C-alpha cells in the first residue's frame, strides 16, 4: 500500500524538479515571474498616486488689501496647493483648458469690503450684493476626482481662515461645530499604503494564471505532454507537480513584494504573518486553478495568453477593489465582482497590512476563496482524462 504512494511521490518529485529546471532556463518565465512584478511594484508605488498634494491651481487676486493678502499667503504656503497668482483670469483659462491647472480661485475686488459684513453675517443692504460671495472657485470638471479635491481643499482652507480670524477677534465668541478627523489605519492618508498591498493580488494573478497557462500550453504545442502521457504517470500527478512548482514561485514573489512594500516603501504591516501566508496560498491556488483550466481548454499559447489576460488580469485589476471602489459600480458589476477571487485577496491584504487581524473579515474572505478552490478543482478533476482529444 505504501509502495504505491512512494512511487507516486517519486514521480511527482521528478516532475517538479523538471519544472524548476525549465523555469530557470526559460527567459519568458523569468520575465513574467520576476522582472514584471518588480517593475509593477515600482510603477504602482510611484506612478499611481491618489495623494493630492500641491494641487496646481490658479489664483486671481483683484484686491490688494492686507486682509486679502493674508488669505493669499495662507493658500500659497499650504502644502495642498501650488498656486499660480495672476491678476487676470484670461491666461489662467487657457491653462485650465489644457489641464495644466485644475482650478481657478478668484478673490474679487470687493473681498475686503464685503468680508466684514459676511464675517458678522450682516445682510447687505444692496439687494444686488446678496448673491455675491467673497470667494469664487472654479474646478475643472473634466477630471471629477481631482475636482472634488480642489473644491474640498478650498472649502477647508477658507473655513480655516475664518476660524483663525474669529480666534483673533476675541471679543466675539465663535460657536460652531468643529470636526476632528481620524483616518484609521492610514493616518498619513498615503494612497501607496492601500495600493501596494492590493498589488500583491495582481502580481500573483500574473504568475498563477498567465504564466501557468502559458507554460502548460507550451507543453501541448511542443508535444512533450504526449510523451508524458504514454508513461504510467497520471494527469493528476502532472498537474500536481506543476502546481507545486508554480505555487512556490508565486509565494516567493509574494514574499518579494511584501519585503519591497514594507522595507523600501514603508507600508506598515500590522497583521499576522501566518494569516498572510494562508490567505495568499488560498488565492494563489485559485489563480493556478484558473490558469490550468485555461490552458487545457486552449492548448495553444497565443490563445491562452489572451484568455488569461482577459479573464484573469483585467478583472483582478478592475473589479477587485484594487483602485476602483466596488460599491460605486453598477449593481450587476458588483455581483460579478463577488465571483472574482482577487476581490477577497485585495481586501484581506489591505486589512492585514493596515488594520491588523480583523478575524471576522479574514475568515469570511478565506471561506470564499476556499469555496472557489473547491469548485475549480472539481472542474479540473472532472475534465482531465489522459486522452489527446
Amino acid at each position, binding site marked *: 500500500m505504501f509502495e504505491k504512494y512512494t*512511487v507516486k511521490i517519486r514521480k511527482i518529485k521528478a516532475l517538479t524538479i*523538471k519544472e524548476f529546471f525549465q523555469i530557470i532556463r526559460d527567459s519568458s518565465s523569468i520575465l513574467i515571474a520576476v522582472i514584471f512584478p518588480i517593475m509593477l511594484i515600482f510603477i504602482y508605488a510611484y506612478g499611481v498616486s491618489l495623494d493630492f498634494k500641491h494641487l496646481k491651481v490658479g489664483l486671481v487676486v483683484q484686491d490688494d488689501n492686507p486682509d486679502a493678502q493674508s488669505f493669499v499667503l495662507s493658500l500659497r504656503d499650504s502644502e495642498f496647493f501650488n498656486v499660480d497668482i495672476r491678476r487676470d483670469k484670461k491666461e489662467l483659462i487657457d491653462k485650465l483648458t489644457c489641464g495644466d491647472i485644475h482650478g481657478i480661485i478668484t478673490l474679487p475686488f470687493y473681498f475686503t469690503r464685503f468680508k466684514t459684513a459676511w464675517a458678522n453675517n450682516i445682510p447687505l443692504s444692496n439687494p444686488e450684493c446678496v448673491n455675491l460671495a467673497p470667494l469664487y472657485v472654479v474646478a475643472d470638471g473634466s477630471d471629477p476626482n481631482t475636482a472634488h479635491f480642489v473644491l474640498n481643499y478650498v472649502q477647508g482652507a477658507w473655513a480655516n481662515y475664518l476660524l483663525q480670524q474669529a480666534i483673533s477677534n476675541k471679543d466675539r465668541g465663535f460657536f460652531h461645530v468643529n470636526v476632528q478627523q481620524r483616518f484609521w489605519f492610514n493616518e498619513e492618508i498615503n494612497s501607496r499604503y492601500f495600493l501596494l498591498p492590493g498589488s500583491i493580488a495582481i502580481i500573483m494573478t500574473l504568475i498563477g494564471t498567465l504564466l501557468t497557462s502559458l507554460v502548460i500550453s507550451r507543453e501541448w504545442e511542443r508535444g512533450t505532454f504526449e*510523451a508524458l502521457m*504514454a*508513461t*504510467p504517470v497520471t494527469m493528476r500527478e502532472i498537474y500536481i507537480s506543476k502546481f507545486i512548482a508554480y505555487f512556490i514561485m508565486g509565494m516567493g514573489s509574494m514574499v518579494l513584494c511584501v519585503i519591497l512594500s514594507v522595507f523600501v516603501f514603508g507600508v506598515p504591516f500590522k497583521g499576522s504573518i501566518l494569516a498572510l501566508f494562508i490567505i495568499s496560498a488560498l488565492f494563489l491556488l485559485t489563480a493556478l486553478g484558473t490558469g490550468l483550466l485555461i490552458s487545457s481548454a486552449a492548448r495553444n499559447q497565443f490563445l491562452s495568453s489572451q484568455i488569461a489576460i482577459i479573464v484573469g488580469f483585467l478583472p483582478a485589476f478592475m473589479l477587485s477593489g484594487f483602485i476602483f471602489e466596488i460599491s460605486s459600480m453598477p449593481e450587476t458589476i458588483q455581483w460579478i465582482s463577488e465571483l472574482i477571487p482577487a476581490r477577497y485577496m485585495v481586501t484581506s491584504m489591505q486589512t492585514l497590512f493596515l488594520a491588523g487581524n480583523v478575524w471576522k473579515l479574514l475568515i469570511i474572505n478565506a471561506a470564499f476563496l476556499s469555496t472557489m478552490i473547491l469548485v475549480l478543482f472539481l472542474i479540473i478533476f472532472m475534465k482531465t482524462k489522459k486522452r*489527446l482529444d
Partner: protein
Amino acid sequence: MNDKIVIIKNLKKSFDNEKTFALKSINAEFSAGKIVGLIGPDGAGKTTLIRIMAGLLKPTEGSVAILGNDTILQSKNIYELIGYMPQKFGLYEDLTVMQNLNLYAELQGLTKEAKKDRFPTLLHFTALKPFTSRLARDLSGGMKQKLGLACALLRKPKFLLLDEPSVGVDPISRRELWSMILELAKDKVSILWSTSYLDEAEKCQEVLILNKGEMLYYGEPKRLTEKLKERVFQIQNIETDRRRVLTSALNQEEVLDGVIQGSAVRIVAKKDQQIRLENFNAGKMATLRAVDARFEDSFMDLLGGAPKGESPLAKLISNVPKDEQAIIEVKALTKCFGNFTAANNITFSVKKGEIFGLLGPNGAGKSTTFKMLCGLLTPTKGEAFISGLSIKKVTSQARARIGYMAQKFSLYNNMTVIQNLHFFAGIYPVDEKNKENIIQNMIKTFDLTSFINTTTSELPLGFKQRLALSCAIMHNPEVLFLDEPTSGVDPITRREFWSHINAMVSKNVAIIITTHFMDEAEYCDRIGLINHGNLITIGSPDDLKQMAQSSDLPSPTLEDAFIILSSKQDEAQHV
C-alpha cells in the same frame, strides 16, 4: 498462434463526429519480435493510428489490444508494456541528456538498482555517454533521435512505437538507428516504425500501408514487390533528353509509372503489358534493362499509377534562349555566425535549363547557402550573381529574377486563391497591363477555376502545390529556387510536381533545389554534396555513384554515395 502481440480489429477513427474518417477500418495482427513498418505519406493517418495504439486516443469504432490488454479498458497495463517515441522525440529542450533520462526513469517507476543497470547500457547503446550534461536543445538531430529512443527503452518494453523517428535526420544517423532497432528485434522486442520514406519499408519484416486513412496492404513487403516481378525496367544510354523520354514514356498506355534515376529512366509496366522501346524516342543507342522492383514501385502499383499527360506549363512558358553561360554563379560564398562557420567557401555555377541540387543532411549548411543565394542572408565573404546581378549589391533587382517556392508553400492561408494570385502579381514585376491575363492563364493552366474563391487552407495538397508554383512563376523568372519541395508528400503529388518542373526545364529555366531526400536528388542534372558547411563534391548523380563504387559495393545507391563520400571527407579532415 498466440504469439500475436498486437491485435487491431476493425479500427475506425473520426475527429468530427463521423463526418470524415481519419482511419477507415484497419485490421492487422502483429507477431512478437517483428519489425513492422507503418508506411504512408503525410496525412495518411499514421500518427493517429500510433496514438490510438499507445492509448492516447479513443477509437470511434473497433479496438486495439496489446498482449491481451485493450488500450482503453486496461490502459494502465498498456503503459507498462509499451515504449513510445512521439514526433519531435518528446524531449525536454531545457534539460540535459541525463536529466531527461532521469525524468523518464522516475516517471516509469524504475528503481535505483534498475537505473544503475539500464543507464550505462542505454548510454552505450546510443553513444551518448560523452554528452550527458549537454542540454537537449543543443543536440544534433541524430542525437536527439537516439536520446528519444533511449527514454522509450528505459523499461525494456515489449512493444516499441516510433512515430517518424527518421524525419530530417542525416543518412548516417538513420543507418545507426536501424542497426539499433535490428538488435532490439533480436531481443524479441516488437517494433512499429512509422515513416514516409518508402525505401525504409524494405527493411521491415512486415508493412502496413496507409493512404488517406485506408489500409492498402498489410503483410510482407517481399510479397508486394514480387507482384512486380519482371515488370520493372530501366531505359539506359539515352541519347536524347531524358526528361522528354520520361514524358513520352508516361504517355504510353502500357506504362504504369516512371521516374528519373540519374541518367536513366525507370519505368514500371502495367500488368501483362509489353514495353516497346521504340515509342520512347530515346535514340538508337538506348537499351531496355530489367531491374529488381523496389518498394516504391509496388506502392505506385497499389495507388494506381502516375498521373499522365504533359504539364500545361510547357505551352505556357516562353522559351528562354539557351546559352552556355552560367545564369547562377556562386564564388567562395561563406557565412559565419560568430565563431561558427555554417557555410565555407562554396563555389559552383548553374546553366540555363539545368537542375542543380544542394544535397546534404539537416544542419549541413545547405539551407544557409540557399538563403544566401535568395538574398535572405548576407554573406560574410564571397559573392553570388543571378543573371549577372550581384545579390550583395543590387539585391532587390536580383530578386526580381528569382522565383521561390518554400517547403510548406508559405501561402496566405486565410486568403482565397484569387487573392493570393493578385498579391504575388503585385509584389513581383509582373507587367501591369497584362496582369489580369497572366493571372487568368495561371488559373486555366493549373486547373484552379473551381477553386478561385476557396481559401488556401481548404485546398487539397496537390492544388496548394499548384497555387504555390503559379505564384512563384508569374513573373517569368529565369531561375527557380525550390526548398525541400516534396518532403513527406505522397508519391503521386510528387510526380505531378516534377512534371511541372521538367516542363519548365525544357523551356530553359534554371532550377536550384535543396533536399535531403535521395530519390528527389536523382532528378537533378548535377548535385552539390554539402556536409559540415563544406561543398564536398559536385557531379551528376551517376558520377557520384561511381565515385562511391568499390568491390564491396558494385552498384551503390545515391544514399550509399552520400555516406561514403561524407565519411571520406570527415576522415580527411581529421588526418
